[in-house]
């Protein structure tokens, strides 16, 4: 784990609301694997760090993808190149890849696309064929960047690809699925692919395993820590009903 003072190098837009920010962070770039995250601290800024999956790595650059949903993400999008923040990572346990699968579907909804480019990289390294499945509300919200051998789109309104959910767009016969997106989507996926690997989001206090704030309810009973044992889990091992469907609050005014 490293605590890197990382300058913003560049940013680019993916959709009307989604941006990619690239920070210089050589130690983390060198170590991070698909599904791991970094925890970002802004000063001045909110009290706690903000966790983000690593989107892509390019040399010494670590990319994250985000949209403004609250104070922290707003401040992140207000950074100008050269501004620095503290980047703690890589954190958590990412996806694992088994060459025996031969093929893998990378299934994401909305911002859940975040861990997928690295997953595609690591899947390819493991010799796997990659089927990229990505969905959003409507065509304009789709992240156009994709990597793999095949791509499938899904939109709620049918404006691009399948009209329906990414779960429906995923080839039924694919041997393994790696997924990320809103909890209800992942819960649906767990019904069909209980052995899928899913990267889940929880609120986090520390991101390093000491606070027990990031409780993930397990099917076997009890909770463990998204930041340490997770954020990637076997879909069938999660007690989905005990996870909040949406994490849609924001720190109100300060």
């Amino acid at each position: 784990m490293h605590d890197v003072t990382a300058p913003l190098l560049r940013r680019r837009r993916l959709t009307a609301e989604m941006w990619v920010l690239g920070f210089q962070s050589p130690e983390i770039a060198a170590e991070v694997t698909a599904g791991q995250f970094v925890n970002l601290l802004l000063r001045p800024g909110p009290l706690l760090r903000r966790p983000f999956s690593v989107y892509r790595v390019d040399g010494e650059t670590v990319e994250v993808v985000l949209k403004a949903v609250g104070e922290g993400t707003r401040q992140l999008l207000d950074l100008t190149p050269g501004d620095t923040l503290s980047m703690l990572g890589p954190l958590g346990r990412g996806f694992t890849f088994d060459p025996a699968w031969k093929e893998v579907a990378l299934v994401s909804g909305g911002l859940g696309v975040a861990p997928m480019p690295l997953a595609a990289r690591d899947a390819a390294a493991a010799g796997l064929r990659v089927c990229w499945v990505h969905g959003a509300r409507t065509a304009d919200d789709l992240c156009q960047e994709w990597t793999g051998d095949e791509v499938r789109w899904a939109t709620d309104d049918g404006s691009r690809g399948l009209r329906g959910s990414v779960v429906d767009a995923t080839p039924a016969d694919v041997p393994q699925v790696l997924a990320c997106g809103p909890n209800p989507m992942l819960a649906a996926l767990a019904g069909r692919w209980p052995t899928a690997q899913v990267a889940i989001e929880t609120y986090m206090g520390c991101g390093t395993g000491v606070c027990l704030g990031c409780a993930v309810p397990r099917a076997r009973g009890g909770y463990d820590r998204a930041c340490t044992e997770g954020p990637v889990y076997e879909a069938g091992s999660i007690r989905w009903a005990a996870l909040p469907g949406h994490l849609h609050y924001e720190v109100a005014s300060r």
Partner: protein
Amino acid sequence: MTLEVGRVQLRTPVMAASGTFGYGTEVPLLDRSRLGGMVSKGIFLHPRPGTPPVRIVETPSGMLNAIGLQGPGVDALLRDYSPQWAEWDFPVLVNINAETVDEYGELAARLDGAPGVAGLEVNISCPNVSQGGMLFGKDARLAAAVTGAVRRRTALPVWVKLTPAVTDIAEIARACEDAGADALCAVNTFVGMSIDLHTRRPRIAFGTGGLSGPAIRPMAVHLAHQAAKAVRIPVVGIGGITTASDALEFLIAGCRAVQVGTATFAEPRAIESVVEGIERYVSDNGYEDLDALPRLVEPESEAAPAT
């Protein structure tokens, strides 16, 4: 800067607070040689699963948490952690929790003499199941009963961690001192609530949560000061400490040491810079050591404020 506080030998005056440092086994980046000591995550006699998510929400300059004292119970603690602690060169206090006075005593007895356990920090901000769930720490008589029960069952140093939301903290501090506490810790989190306007439910699944972080610091300094004035045993200051200046406020207010909690979430190395800053203040001002630190110059009036 080694010092003795409530019969525990600390390496520096800055400790890691309970619940913010786990069992000390997963602490990234921090240079542990600067750590005065640590308090473990709160433990019960029996394993507890903890509360369902959401457990944490951020609030202005603070955060609410309701972890529900998730933990493996004292047997697992003795098996998995206490042997490791025995190898470490800083003291580990175990934060003990219970639902009845007897259970506190039982837990203290189980930990008595355990390797690597330098002392007990009694968390009296637990609901008393036999009295309608009122926190032990809200009532002087109950707080004293818990302190006494622990005191009688162990030779270990006993620190009692005070509940902040009380009418008169001095009264409770004195009651704990009289019941045999070696030190007091002031303070624990403040009860708070935050509501999700979409679901109209509390954001914390449990309902309420404990407020910590810089937001509470002015209240914590006041309460630690009140406690320190009320007793002869040492007081350990806790609440919103992020920098050395914050820690020095508690020390000048009469505390002998401090604990850092929430700040370490953002800055895993916060304790190092707090220790360094205290050392610098002490030497810049030419004090021989921390004991020579002069105390608060009290204002003339000590009455309650009229805003």
